[in-house]
């Protein structure tokens, strides 16, 4: 049992002097994903079929590659911001919390690298 005063516990270690950027980034990425998501859906529906050759040929144009990279990277960024919040909300042990956040960042980082390499490879012709 701690004899720390309730006010001392409420004040804790003070303010971290951060926070607005997270919410701003989450809303900004969400807004950007609306037109990009619509574009992605419409573009896929407009393809004659979803076979490997057709989709690779579609990605191999510079406009598609740029928009696809934007869509995938923003989705991953938005996802990381969201799941990190869930971990911060519900995981309270400092070790497990830090490990979970690092694992999430690593997983999203690896996924982002895979997307970039894949699109560049298709664009450069090495993946056809």
């Amino acid at each position, binding site marked *: 049992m701690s004899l720390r005063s309730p006010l001392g*516990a409420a004040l804790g270690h003070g303010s971290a*002097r951060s*926070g*607005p950027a997270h919410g701003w980034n989450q809303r900004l990425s969400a807004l950007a994903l609306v037109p990009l998501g619509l574009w992605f859906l419409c573009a896929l529906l407009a393809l004659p079929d979803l076979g490997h050759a057709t989709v690779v040929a579609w990605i191999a144009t510079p406009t598609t590659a740029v928009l696809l990279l934007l869509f995938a990277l923003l989705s991953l960024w938005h996802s990381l911001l969201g799941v990190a919040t869930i971990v911060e909300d519900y995981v309270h042990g400092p070790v497990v919390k830090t490990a979970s956040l690092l694992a999430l960042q690593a997983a999203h980082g690896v996924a982002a690298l895979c997307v970039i390499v894949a699109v560049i490879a298709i664009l450069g012709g090495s993946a056809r």
Partner: protein
Amino acid sequence: MTQFHLPAGSRYRDVPGRSHPAPAGAQRVREFRIYRWDPESGQKPRIDRFEIDLDACGPMVLDALLKIKNEIDPTLTFRRSCREGICGSCAMNIDGVNALACTCAIADIRGAVRIFPLPHLAVTKDLVPDLAHFYAQYAAVEPWLKTRTPPPPDRECLQSPADQERVDRPSACILCACCSTSCPSYWWNSDRYLGPAALMAAYRWVVDTRDEAQGERLDALEDPFRLYRCHTIMNCVAACPKDLNPARVIADLKRRVGDRQH
């Protein structure tokens, strides 16, 4: 990890409660199911059932609680004072919703009236929760006027009627804790998240034109947990017995903190 379930042995379903039937000849009988627990007794929590004759009872839930305490079971413990919705003492969870027992009409509740203490607070006894941390969070936002300009020697600090209107609504908060204890973010992170009530109190001074510490106040709130753990769930708005809008106040605080960045 967050604990989603009560510890083993503390669930009220483990122990049968006591039943108090209505008096003979009662015409309009309503059942009240009330959470009972005395942590110092060593016994587990239970739900007691009381059948009340509404023809011999006032119209509000607090009237029924007082009738039970005065006539049936004097050990029933709860807070109450003004009995007209201005002191905030009788806040409790009634029929699944945080409310003031004195302004909650029995007629508005269907079936048995289920009464529990405010959720996610330590229980002192029966319907009395421990509000020490809640009040400490209120104190932590320093809810008093802070100025650097010395007050005029011959009068008080003046405020225009329009400026006063800005603090009218946030000043109406009675600190009953209905909002904070209805907020899931507060349930899981009340050690760091200030909660809607304390943020409403902070806002009341941030928008006060006589106060000269807005910057310091916003500095103290600029934190991923203290302010930004609000995820706009809006339970606070539904729970407030004074019809205040803590969610809008928190959004305005976030906007004011964010506006300093650009």
